[in-house]
């Protein structure tokens, strides 16, 4: 890159301006060819709406960045590929890295895919920021020393929070529990976390049913019938795909809600489909890292939610926040790393070093990456209420917790953390 006098002056001026502005606007201007970010998100199927939400947020973040000069003066372009099953998604990753030669890969929503894709991305030395993917095998980290891959918060965060809320508010009020979790690694993680926490806090309980509906299965009547037969006091479910509203509908129709408590750590993905007429009040309901109607939301979140409504007549789920965080973290890291190197565009290794420990202002509040490449974010869960302003269930009482209190720390196994870690209800 030619460092002309004009460029140097621009950098100095830009730095001056940047010092006075908020972190999200670009720092200096190096100029140059467009920056390519590869996006891998589901476009169809049971996670289609989720992928779409994340993509919309990523586009918003990109347009905002481009409007103020891009990243270090380079405009940002997306190359979007579809996330489907692990094998095909890895091939799409190959294409993004080898053919499109993207500077960074962001995306991935399914734990099964991310678990398989992590090693592939590491092998290709492709800087990858997962939106919602982790590389947990069960509840344990399978890639503790990742260099090129940055992962989202551990799968157990939402399960731990929901469990803690259940213990805090409902201890002594339930004796039998049933689990209805999607039949894949994420569902298994969540259920394991729930049970481990009940055990750790000495909550007496009996598991009367453990159901594993097939991911994407649209016929849940057998599961609802099995649940009814088991008569649980509390149902814990990490269902989160398009089958969740179907389950609620059918469970409601079968009369399941009258005497049972519900804890749904991941229901927020489908929140607009969980209509008031079949979603009860008083459910523990998780919105992960973005609750669109949070009363104390930051101006950034308010701006985004308003934009989302104006553009799409819909309300975002937490995937938007994950996508925004990945983009913002990358942008901030590039700009910070550039400052260290006197303004020239940093190389991949420098960006990675800067990403470790970075903290940015994301839609849901302050978010950061730990040194071990796992994200640390703020989680929002609460109890559902029916508000006439919306035809779907929203939260009444909102609890806010930081992931530091909800996921195992670096280097510790889940079992150890549950047994010995500092966890407060």
């Amino acid at each position, binding site marked *: 890159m030619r460092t002309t006098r004009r460029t140097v002056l621009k950098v100095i001026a830009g730095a001056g301006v940047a010092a006075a502005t908020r972190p999200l606007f670009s720092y200096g201007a190096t100029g140059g060819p467009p920056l390519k970010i590869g996006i891998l998100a589901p476009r169809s199927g049971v996670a289609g709406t989720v992928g779409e939400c994340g993509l919309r947020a990523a586009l918003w973040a990109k347009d905002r960045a481009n409007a103020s000069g891009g990243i270090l003066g380079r405009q940002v372009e997306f190359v979007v590929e579809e996330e489907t099953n692990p094998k095909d998604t890895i091939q799409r990753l190959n*294409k993004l890295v*080898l053919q499109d030669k993207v500077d960074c890969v962001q995306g991935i929503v399914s734990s*099964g895919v991310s678990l398989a894709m992590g090693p592939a991305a590491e092998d290709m030395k492709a800087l990858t920021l997962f939106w919602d993917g982790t590389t947990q095998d069960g509840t344990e980290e399978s890639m503790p020393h990742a260099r090129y891959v940055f992962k989202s918060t551990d799968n157990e965060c939402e399960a731990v929070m929901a469990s803690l809320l259940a213990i805090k508010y409902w201890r002594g009020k339930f004796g039998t529990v049933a689990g209805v979790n999607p039949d894949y690694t994420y569902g298994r993680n969540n259920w394991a976390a729930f049970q481990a926490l009940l055990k750790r806090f000495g909550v007496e309980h009996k598991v009367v049913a453990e159901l594993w509906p097939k991911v994407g299965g649209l016929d849940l009547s057998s599961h609802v019938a099995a649940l009814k037969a088991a008569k649980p006091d509390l149902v814990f479910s990490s269902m989160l795909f398009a089958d969740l509203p179907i389950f609620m509908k059918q469970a409601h129709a079968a009369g399941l809600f009258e005497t049972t408590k519900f804890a749904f750590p991941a229901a927020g993905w489908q929140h607009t489909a969980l209509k008031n007429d079949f979603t009860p009040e008083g459910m523990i309901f998780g919105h992960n890292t973005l609750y669109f109607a949070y009363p104390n939301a930051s101006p950034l979140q308010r701006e985004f939610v308003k934009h989302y409504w104006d553009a799409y007549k819909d309300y975002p789920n937490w995937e938007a926040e994950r996508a925004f965080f990945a983009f913002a973290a990358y942008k901030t890291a590039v700009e910070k790393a550039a400052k260290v190197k006197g303004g020239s565009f940093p190389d991949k290794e420098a960006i990675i070093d800067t990403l470790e420990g970075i903290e940015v202002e994301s839609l849901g509040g302050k978010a950061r990456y730990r040194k071990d490449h796992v994200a640390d974010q703020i989680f929002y869960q609460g109890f559902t209420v029916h508000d006439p302003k919306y035809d779907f269930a929203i939260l009444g009482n909102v609890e806010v917790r930081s992931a530091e209190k909800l996921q195992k720390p670096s280097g510790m196994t889940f079992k150890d953390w549950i047994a010995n870690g500092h966890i407060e209800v």
Partner: protein
Amino acid sequence: MKAAVWVGLGALAALAAAPLVLEPYPLTLLLQFFAYGLALLGLNLLFGYTGLLSFGQALFVALGAYSAAVCTRKLGWHSFELVLGVAVVVAVVVAVPIGLLCVRYVSIFFGMLTLAFGMLFHSFLFKFYLVTGGDGGMLVERPSLFGMRFAEMDKTMFLTRPFYWYALGLLAVGTVVMWRIVHSPFGLHLSAIRENARKAEYLGVEVRRLRLIAFVIASAFAAVGGTLLGVRTGLADPELAYWTHSGNLIFMTLLGGFSNFAGPLVGAGVFIFLQDSLMSFTQYWRLVLGVVLVVIVVLFPRGLVGLAQSLVARLLRRRRDAHAHRNA
């Protein structure tokens, strides 16, 4: 016939030279082509020559990939020669009982039985996740080729140079082996069975035994293809065994032309590159592929190779006629 050999050698040389000319991504696509080429050589023996349409061939492809995963990841056996051996043995061991059950039937029933077995395996891979890794699949680690680890190369380099040539070699060997099989008395008997099973039986051909052998050979080829796929992706996952994957295998065979030896190879190549370019071009690539399949089935049942052959024949005939006309 001679022409075919020259064409084959020419293709081999071009493919061998590809890594020096092409970018890494098209080379990974070619790797896929080698893998599917092998699987299809086997499927064509079963379908083109024996007349049995199996809707469960993907089962053996998956078996190959999972064998590679178990060997390299769980057992620590990284020698690719050993992995290939294990994959073939596993495929044969599974194919024999399934084959014994299936070859008693023909056409639809054979197709449905093989589909059921394929889906049974898919369900098993998915549900018994403690053993198989479930929906996330099982990782396949980098193998050593003839004892050489190439540790200093990164994955992409490994895949696009040493592993590429190894896979190309495997395909070449597989092609020669299949050629010999097809032109052997065994192969001729298979064609006879396809034409008219009862007559063949009357003439002393042991129909069931030969069908079983064809089934087992096809499964071995599919498994070898599966190991190549597993190494290339670095993963063995359950979707490899889903019935639509078997459907794609048949599509490829038909695309190239199943009554022809080279057909499946052409079909595999065209399908892979077609699918890849379509996927980047439009969301609606399934529609295009579907229409292509309709066109092939309705208008060009002998596939691309068949089409090419008839075009060539027509050209030659026209030239001969013109020649004769001139001399008349």
